């Protein structure tokens, strides 16, 4: 506030009062926000973890435990922190904490917006064990068949990944690396295939040699209980 203009601003509150009221409001609002954050923190974290776990369990059968791996300095390291980025994948383990396979994420632009895919991969026989669409805005009734059409999703179960997979017109599938595209949603089908091919290319040289996979470090009692 300009003090020279006091004659004009006799009615106006001092700047100190303005700052004070803003500060009080900010303080109270901060308290409320932190309170609700603390209150909901555990539930939200658990929800997210459960969602991710369910997706991983879906694409990698027989998995009981999982952990996150981060590709850093040319090797895979186990991470325990929250959050996920493009350089991270999941490793799945069975009841006896023996390594089973990887669950790998990939994304690419689809018909409307970016499509996010998670797929399971067995390095022992280079098979894709399953595919799950994590996020997409494809056209309802058409492009969304990439996750609603179980025939299409089923094609990614035990799909050998010796070379790039290819989406072909429905009914013309002749090779084992081919996928029947969804009629009327060819673009969306091809996007899924493209994402998997790209992610495969990116990750296959990075994965640990067979038998050398990182051991299960995290042991969450909760996971164990749920899976039994």
């Amino acid at each position: 506030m300009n003090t020279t203009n006091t004659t004009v601003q006799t009615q106006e509150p001092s700047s100190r009062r303005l700052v004070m009221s803003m500060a009080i409001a900010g303080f109270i609002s901060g308290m409320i926000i932190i309170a609700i954050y603390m209150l909901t923190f555990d539930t939200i974290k658990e929800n997210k973890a459960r969602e991710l776990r369910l997706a991983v369990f879906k694409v990698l059968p027989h998995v009981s435990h999982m952990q996150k791996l981060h590709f850093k300095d040319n090797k895979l390291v186990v991470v325990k922190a929250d959050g996920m980025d493009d350089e991270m994948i999941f490793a799945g383990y069975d009841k006896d904490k023996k390594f089973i396979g990887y669950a790998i994420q990939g994304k690419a632009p689809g018909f409307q917006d970016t499509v996010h895919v998670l797929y399971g991969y067995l390095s022992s026989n280079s098979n894709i064990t399953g595919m799950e669409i994590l996020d997409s805005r494809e056209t309802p009734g058409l492009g969304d068949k990439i996750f609603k059409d179980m025939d299409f999703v089923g094609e990614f179960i035990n799909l050998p990944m010796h070379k790039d997979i290819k989406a072909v017109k429905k009914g013309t599938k002749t090779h084992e690396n081919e996928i029947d595209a969804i009629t009327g949603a060819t673009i969306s089908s091809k996007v899924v295939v493209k994402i998997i091919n790209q992610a495969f290319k990116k990750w296959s040289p990075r994965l640990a040699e067979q038998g050398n996979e990182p051991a299960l470090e995290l042991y969450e009692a909760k996971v164990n209980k749920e899976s039994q």
Partner: protein
Amino acid sequence: MDDLLWIFISTLLVNNFVLAYFLGLCPFLGVSGHLETSFRLGLATTFVLVITALCAWILNTYVLIYAPYLRLISFIVVIASTVQFIEMSIKKLSPALFKSLGIFLPLITTNCAILGLAIFATNRSYDLVEGLVFALGAGAGFTLAMVLMAGIREETEIMDVPVLIRGTAFNLIIAGILSMAFMGFAGLFSST
């Protein structure tokens, strides 16, 4: 590089902020009566969007990783003060520019496209360059939609549109048709 082009095209045409995400509808329905005004408002908004993308990135990288719960409130405060700051500096640096853009700046603060941009950029974890391209695309898309809308509205002003239809209902229907026409861009540059 490819990705940046796609982010731009996608926000400009396929996922246009106004016509597909419904962001910035207040000015789109309210202030789109005149072509000249709409174009200028579009430019001013683009400018603020780019600045916001920059601010959001700074906040996300340096502040919000420690306090994610302050995201919304800090975005709001930063946007409001940025707009105020821009308004003041334009007024000082270029009175001519202020004359043409100045009156729109307060309007922009209440434009949900700005906050929407910050939130979308965060949700998609864009880095700085991606965020800036995203903001440019969003701004260009907003301007494009505004200008098309204003052209159509000026044209229909002198036609005998039934009185009952005129007004917001009519604007919404035009917007719906535009949005339908933009559906033709679906999948642009994604399938290769």
